[in-house]
């Protein structure tokens, strides 16, 4: 039984990959993503700790790009290039972790609200709707202002405020699956809640959850940089949002220090765009409804 099943899965994976590869945007996004991951992983190897230490900085204040500092220096004389490269790691990790947290909460709530009707569903829906219309940034700001701390707080704040969208999506998909007669058949065969959820609902919701996570990472990275820009979290951690905050408060805008303002911002946009492109490409592959349409 295993060998044909495995062969079929391999075939399916190959087909999915070919479909994904046919989407040029997704492929570009994947390459960009790979570069960022590489930079994040190799950061500690590439960059000397001394380049990041304010007290040991070698450059002058806010110098424009030169042979020594390819992207100029910040207000403390540190290399903007080194800072930007170093910031990759934290942005990536925080984005992934926050997205994962939000999708896990969202999927749990969505499946529970979709599978069980009655008061449980009503309460969960009320909650989801409330958090859905809530300006999530405002809540995240409040949370990270109140809870002191670094990356962990930021992850928690973003994860806790951004789950409702995926809860809604997963609930809709759960309801769609539960309306299919094969669920009725499964119940009539004697399957309980656990059987229906784990054998039928979860497997059919998972591709959607996967796509959703990919897309949520982009949103989480933007949210993370925004919180940092507003001065929340541990300001000693080197992050893109934090760099831009320092740039803003050190007068880089009026000074016209584009080399300080552009690199972290462009890095954010590129990384977010890469996740979004990959997510949308995955969507066309994994979401049968979209596949027919495009």
């Amino acid at each position, binding site marked *: 039984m295993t060998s044909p099943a495995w062969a079929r899965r391999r075939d399916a994976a190959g087909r999915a990959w070919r479909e994904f590869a046919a989407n040029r945007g997704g492929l570009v996004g994947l390459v960009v993503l790979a570069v960022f991951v590489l930079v994040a992983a190799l950061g500690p190897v590439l960059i000397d700790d001394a380049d990041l230490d304010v007290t040991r900085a070698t450059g002058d204040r806010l110098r424009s790009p030169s042979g020594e500092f390819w992207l100029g220096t910040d207000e403390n004389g540190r290399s903007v290039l080194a800072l930007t490269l170093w910031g990759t790691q934290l942005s990536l990790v925080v984005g992934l972790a926050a997205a994962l947290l939000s999708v896990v909460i969202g999927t749990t709530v969505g499946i529970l609200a979709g599978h069980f009707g009655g008061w449980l569903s009503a309460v969960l829906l009320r909650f989801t709707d409330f958090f859905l219309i809530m300006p999530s940034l405002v809540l995240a700001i409040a949370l990270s202002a109140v809870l002191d701390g670094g990356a962990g707080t930021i992850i928690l704040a973003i994860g806790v405020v951004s789950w409702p969208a995926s809860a809604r999506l997963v609930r809709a998909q759960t309801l769609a699956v539960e309306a299919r*007669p*094969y669920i009725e058949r499964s119940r009539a*065969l004697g399957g309980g809640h656990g059987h229906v959820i784990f054998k039928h609902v979860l497997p059919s919701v998972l591709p959607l959850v996967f796509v959703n996570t990919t897309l949520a990472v982009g949103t989480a990275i933007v949210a993370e940089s925004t919180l940092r820009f507003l001065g929340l979290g541990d300001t000693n951690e080197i992050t893109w949002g934090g760099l831009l905050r320092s740039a803003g408060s050190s007068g880089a805008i009026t000074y016209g220090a584009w080399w300080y303002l552009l690199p972290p911002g462009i890095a954010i946009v590129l990384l977010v765009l890469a996740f979004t492109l990959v997510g949308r490409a995955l969507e066309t592959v994994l979401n049968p409804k979209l596949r027919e349409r495009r």
Partner: protein
Amino acid sequence: MTPVLELRDLRVTYAGGHAAVRGVDLTLLPGQTLGLAGESGCGKSSLAMSVLRLLPKDAQVSGEILLDGEDTRAMSWGRLRAVRWASASIVFQGAMHALNPVRRVGTQIAEPMRLHASLPEDQVEARVAQLLAQVELPPEKARAYPHELSGGQKQRVMIAMALACGPRLVIADEPTTALDVIVQAQVLALVTRLVAEQGIGLVMISHDLSVLGSVCERLAVMYEGQVVELGSAPTVVHDPQHAHTKALAAAFPTVGDPASRYAPATTNPAGVPPKVVPRAGEPLLRTQALRVDFRQRGGGWMRAVNDVSLEVGRGEIVALVGQSGSGKTTLARTVLGLQQPSGGQVLYDGRPLPRGSRGLREYRREAQLVLQDPTSALNPRHTVYEAVAEGLRIHRMPGDERELVAAALEAAELRPAGRYMPVLPHRLSGGQRQRVVIAGALALRPRLLVADEPVASLDASVRGEILALLLRLRAELGLAALVITHDLGLAWNIADRVAVMYRGELVEVGEVEQVLLAPRHEYTQSLLAALPEVAPVT
């Protein structure tokens, strides 16, 4: 006389090389009616859509489509737009989706008149009222939105819309498919009357030979993109020549015809088993004064099942007949313990259904469900093996799983079982899928099958095979069945007794011959009267 519609060597090919229509010649003179019959995928809808060039862009059309002698394929876009609806209009399949949900139906009926300026603006409203009157709807329905109308009313609106510009040709694509028997009869009567009164040419498309035969003078039977039989309606229905026409005709048996009693059309060499007399004694399943209420949206209660007492004996096949909304599916779900009754009780083997989930699980091994649409009754991600083994795993049935699955597949006549096991459902035909569902039920060695419209979504030629399988399972395994259907022909084909359900109540229960040949309740009488009838060959 110029024909209103003439097709010469029409071919439609979709991107990817699928030839939907492969060389069709048809002629329709003014005022004539032609029925186009065939199973799903035979190309009949592609043919209909090609007449007004409404096919998707990836469809290649060749041959000639002469509308009043003018080839629509050669028309400019402007000319084509002028011809659309003014010369030929369409009554689409599924009026629910063919009407714009956010516009009033009156506006939608008036739209083609305004567009083609067939009437001065100040007369449009009166004309809409007149059209509504013609389809027997009150004029104030013009202000209704589609969702405020019933299925039959929507179909009437579609017909009114089709007649708006006084076309010479109306193409009706499965106009009554989603409707109940009685409403279907009313709509068909309406179409017949209007077409005759106004001398309109009609091309009507359906999978149901008897529906077409009751309305049209001539019938064309399509199979794999070609017309395989063409002739006067009574001849085609009563004396079919082509093998495929024979299968279509046999799929809709005449109630009262002794040849089709306990004998659904099958080509299976196993044939139809001899009649089995159900064992007497305590019935296997009994409902006592069963009631099911639903809370309605916006408050109030709706009684779906009212005071129903029904018995299914051991090895007996009982058909539960009724139109949609009569509560028959709710009754089936309650019988299986999928729905809690509000009153009364269900007795299985003389004992009330257990309430706890453990007791119910044991009951659900013995009573199995077969659903209407096998395509959606199987998880598309699960192989045939997994689908059949699902119940075995839930109940932790003793024995070798693979052997049990193989035995169940063989019993459902999927042979050799090994070939089907690793296949995903979408690779199977509709009939094969329904056999997988049945195999999944048989694997648990049940004593009762509850089948909800088991053949309604299957093609006509497969219908008889599945019904014959049910009869054989009863003969060989002593399996009792409660078959829920809107199709009186099905009851005539396989059931021992029939129960007629109307608005939540059983209005008539008895032997099939007694109820269907000498109905006592007026509802049963009107159901039987609504069956489409084809005139005998003259």
